[in-house]
């Protein structure tokens, strides 16, 4: 099996539940502002927490604008550039039950790091049709990009070191809304 996973301990809290909610509210407003409303906008969340965040953003836009925007789920495993380097792939499936043709697709993920996941997601989306535009919404941008990718909407910019890890905890999965920086426990 895989090499032993290092244990992480919490170093600092970055966002609490109120701050996380405010960041999402602001992103929802920015999406409406940048696109001149919500018509022809669709959300695609990256498994797993990107999907949850996409649903929350869609709910915010429904509150603000009244528009019910579609939300799809994207699994990028089949598009990874490290497939085969990390053991057997675990496929959980893509579910985008609407046409993305001529839509502005807002790609949503929790943390932006090297940019490789987003690169794979761009390929995956374009294989499903030709959207009018793809925009990227990210809760935490932690830097260390390895590809020329930048987000359109950012909840929080968070300078980190590579050995640290950012944990986004969401009510739906973890029972709490909180973002923390973790560092490896020294032996």
């Amino acid at each position, binding site marked *: *099996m*895989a090499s032993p996973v290092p244990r992480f301990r919490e170093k600092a809290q970055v966002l609490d539940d109120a701050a996380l909610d405010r960041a999402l509210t602001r992103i929802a407003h920015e999406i409406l502002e940048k696109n001149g409303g919500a018509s022809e906008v669709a959300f695609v969340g990256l498994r797993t927490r990107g999907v949850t965040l996409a649903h929350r953003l869609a709910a915010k836009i429904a509150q603000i604008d009244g528009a019910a925007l579609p939300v799809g789920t994207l*699994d990028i*495993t*089949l*598009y990874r550039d490290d*497939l*085969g*380097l990390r*053991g*057997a*792939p*675990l*496929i*959980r*499936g*893509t*579910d985008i039950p609407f046409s993305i043709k001529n839509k502005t697709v807002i790609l949503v993920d929790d943390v932006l790091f090297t940019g490789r996941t987003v690169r794979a997601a761009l*390929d*995956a989306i374009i*294989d*499903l*049709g030709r959207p009018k535009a793809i925009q990227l919404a990210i809760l935490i941008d932690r830097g260390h990009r390895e590809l020329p990718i930048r987000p359109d909407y950012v909840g929080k910019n968070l300078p980190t070191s590579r050995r640290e890890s950012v944990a986004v905890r969401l009510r739906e999965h973890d029972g709490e809304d909180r973002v923390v920086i973790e560092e490896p426990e020294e032996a």
Partner: protein
Amino acid sequence: MGWTRKHLLTMRELDASEIVLLIDTAASLQEIATREIKKVPALRGKTIVNLFYEPSTRTRTSFEIAGKWLSADVINFSAGGSSTTKGESFIDTAKTIAAMSPDVVIVRHSSAGAAELLARTLPCSIVNAGDGAHEHPTQALLDLLTIREKKAHFDGLHVAIVGDVAHSRVARSDIHGMRKLGMTVTVAGPPTLIPPFVQELGVKVSYRLEDAIRDVDVIMMLRLQHERMTNGLIPSLREYSRYWGLTLEKLASHARPDVLIMHPGPVNRGIELSPEVADGPYSVILDQVTKGVAVRMGVLLLLAGSKGEAP
């Protein structure tokens, strides 16, 4: 808990969690068939060889489509020559193929154990696509996926496997898979077509169609394999079809209204299945074929997509 095997040779060697992982992976990949562009880059640069020593329509085609949808290069190597028999020449062919460094070889052969022999001989992953009357694991997996989609679960389901059980590798693979997932299995057929000691696989045996199909959730009709049959196993096709052919009338008077009718194909219409049953509302035979592509994508992905970790 992930996939750690290098080969897929039998259902017998898999445990329930591995079977469920294969089915889950296949279920997630089904969506690709509905896309306008049916291709994902997962197995780009991988080479897959279909090595078929026996005729096949759906298995070979569906492995080929599965490989191509995953962007692998698929080569069909059919050893059609009638002089080819097992033994040295089979190994020689296999070594020739290995010299072209494929990542996966899919093999069908009339001898039980052919896939296992290749697994011991070649450095690449081997998928058993049917070896004699032994096993046909991907068929069992697609049967299981079809059942789960239609019935939503496995636990406690009762399946009747009916017909030429003795010559059927599908029956053996199905029995192993279904028993491991908690299903009850009854095999039924004329005594000459029921293998001795089949009860040791944990199944019940029935020698009357009407009894076997009563109260079951799924009826798996098997193809009468005339090509493997020596004389004397059945008196005549007509008599077989009269006692063992499934008709709408027999279904209506003995089976449950929500029963699923399955068949691994190709169907001998009018022998084991009447055309009205094969094309009727109970039949999921074409669903099985569709699921076959998804299952084979899942198998290829788990075998070829996990290099570096296989034992």
